[in-house]
Structure formats: C-alpha cells, structure tokens
C-alpha cells in the first residue's frame, strides 16, 4: 500500500522545502511557501485528530493558514498571463480558441502531471494519500501565488511560461479546442476578412470503389486554393479541409515558428493582469 514520503525514514520538511526553492532557481519566502502546501482538508483532519486525542485547543494551537487565497491568486494570475501570451503570439485566434488553450493548460490532468514530476505531492499536506488531482492542482497554483507574493509578477510570469507552454509541444489546435462545425466557423472567419465563401472541389481521389477510399478536397476562394484536406469519405475530407484552412488562418500550423522564450514579457502587461483581477 502506498505510504507518504513524509512517513518514510529520512525526511526533514524544512530542508526539503528549501531544496524545492533552490531546485526551481527561485527565491521563495519560506513562510509563504509552507502556507502554500497546507490544504484545508489537512487542517480539518489535524483538528479532528487532536480532538480525538483529547488535547485541549488552547494548549497546542494549530495556527496554520490554508492555501485557498494563494491558490486563487495563482490561478487567476496564470490564466490571465497565459491568455496574454496567446493573444500576443496568435493574434488571429478568436477569444474562444484562446480560452480553450488556457483551459487545457490549467486543466486538472496537465497541472497534476506537472506537479507530480516536480515532487509537489511529497511536500503537500493533505488528508488522503495518494494526493488527488484537484488537490495537486490547487497546491501548484498556491505555489505560483506564493511566488507572486515573494518575487513579483515578472519572475512568476517567466515561471508560468517555462512550465506550462512546453506542454503544448506536439499538440494540434483542434485536439485541444473542440470545434463541432469547422465549415461554419471558416465561413464566419472568411466573411470577417472580406473573402468570398469557399467552394469545395475534389482534387485527388484514390480507390473510390474499394473499401478504403481516399479523397482530397480542396477549398477555393475566388478560384484560388486556400487549403486541401484528406478524408475517407467526401464529407470527412471536406471537414478536414475546413480544419486545415482554419489552422492556416489562425497561424497554428505544424510548421509555425516555435515559441519565443528569449525575452521576458513586459512588466507593465503583467501588472495590468494582476490589477485587473
């Protein structure tokens, strides 16, 4: 049965917390960081345990704050920072697309995966073990909130960028953002840019009368091709061609320039983000 690392031999909480902050090359204020790892379920279970053992509340006061305020702060900062990053990098992507990307990056699965690989689950104080995903997510955002209070918005922005943006590598836009009717969305986008509505034509076809046909459908605006997509049936090929066209319009193709990690984001923008929440 799995046991917490803190209950195995050789564990020094203070030293581990210090090592955690050195590992991330960040200067945390240790009190804020220790508060960030305390969850409300832990406080409740500790109080219940003390009541059971009959210890008086005044003699051994459990003056621990929980991490809910830090978690909210961290969550809202990360969301607004990531939203600004994407609006800057992909200006043509509509608000729904940016929202879908931000939701994916702050989703429970991804954040708990990142937290697990940074050994946050060993340092969290929580009632259950193994630590459930939503608790890990809350703790990680609390750590980000603690960093925000300790080092300021610029450094926290760099931290969020370095740990969340690489999770997008290898992912396609429509894996993350579910679009039900790509053709309708494409027609809206084209009317916004004053281009005529697309006309689908079959460009290539292979094996039409076999069990696995392949159709390539091209979409033409004013007799000029904008995208071409393959599919097993004509409808599937048309939908795929619409998706390819949308990817090209939003600038999220597979051969786009990789993310620019060189210069940190402007401090003004980050402070606007913090103040607007």
């Amino acid at each position: 049965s799995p046991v917490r690392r803190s209950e195995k031999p050789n564990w020094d909480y203070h030293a581990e917390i210090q090592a955690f902050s050195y590992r991330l090359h960040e200067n945390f204020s240790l009190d804020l960081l220790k508060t960030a790892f305390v969850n409300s379920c832990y406080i409740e279970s500790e109080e219940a345990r003390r009541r059971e053992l009959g210890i008086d509340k005044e003699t051994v006061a459990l003056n621990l704050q929980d991490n809910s305020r830090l978690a909210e702060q961290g969550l809202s900062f990360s969301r607004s920072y990531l939203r600004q990053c994407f609006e800057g990098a992909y200006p043509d992507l509509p608000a729904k697309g940016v929202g879908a990307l931000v939701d994916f990056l702050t989703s429970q699965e991804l954040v708990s995966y990142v937290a697990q690989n940074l050994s946050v689950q060993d340092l969290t104080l929580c009632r259950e073990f193994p630590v459930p995903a939503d608790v890990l997510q809350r703790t990680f955002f609390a750590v980000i909130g603690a960093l925000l209070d300790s080092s300021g918005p610029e450094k926290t922005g760099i931290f969020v960028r370095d740990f969340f943006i690489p999770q997008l590598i290898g992912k396609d836009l429509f894996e993350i953002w579910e679009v039900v009717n790509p053709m309708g969305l494409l027609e809206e986008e084209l009317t916004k840019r004053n281009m005529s509505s697309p006309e689908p034509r079959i460009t290539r076809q292979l094996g039409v009368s076999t069990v696995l046909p392949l159709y390539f459908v091209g979409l033409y605006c004013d007799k000029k091709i904008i995208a071409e997509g393959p599919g097993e049936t004509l409808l599937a090929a048309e939908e795929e061609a619409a998706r390819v066209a949308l990817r090209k319009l939003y600038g999220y193709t597979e051969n786009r320039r990789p993310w620019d990690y060189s210069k940190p984001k402007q401090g003004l923008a980050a402070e606007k983000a913090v103040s607007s929440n």
Partner: protein
Amino acid sequence: RPRRQFVEEAAVDFARQHPDVVLYVSPRAGPAPLLLAEYLNGTVREELIASKTSEEIKQLATKLAGQSGLDIIRIRKPFHTDNPSVQGQWHPLTNKPSALTIQGPRLQPQ
C-alpha cells in the same frame, strides 16, 4: 574507513555545492552501505559504496545529483525534433498532377 571519511569531510562540501539536493546521513544496521538517490519523478536508485574511496563516493554522488530520474535505457536515436517537416510531409500523392489541373481533349477540369 572511506565512508566515514566521506561523511566527515566531503559530505558538507557536497551539500553546499548542490543546494537543491537534500543529503541525509543515517546509520544503518544492515547488510551493505548504500547511496540511495530518489528523483523527482519517483525513481529510486541504489548504489553500493562498500569498497569505494571517499573521492569515488563524492564523484558518484555528483553524478547521481546531475541525473534526471528517467530510466536508463538505450537511446534509440541521438536526435529529436518537434518540427519534422517544414514544407509538409511527403505522401504518395504529393507532386502527382491533381484532377483539376489536367487539361486535355478527354479530361476536363471539374
């Protein structure tokens, strides 16, 4: 004894040089002396330090501190890229004339 020498001299230096690694020294009444390395993603690596000099133990500890916790298996290829194709990956229908561009007396463009 080399291990005691290591603990007395080199361990503190090692801990100062690697502030992100927490070094625990504990006496074990067991079979053999071990150097146990626990990584962030959960892998645990044990190395025997029974017949090693203090210098060797220090080098071993530095090596383990620099590793990540990924499994030590054969790397299939020494290169990796996230953008394998810039102009579009070849498939059997690239560079074949499309049905729309064939002009001729018999084949009409659609």
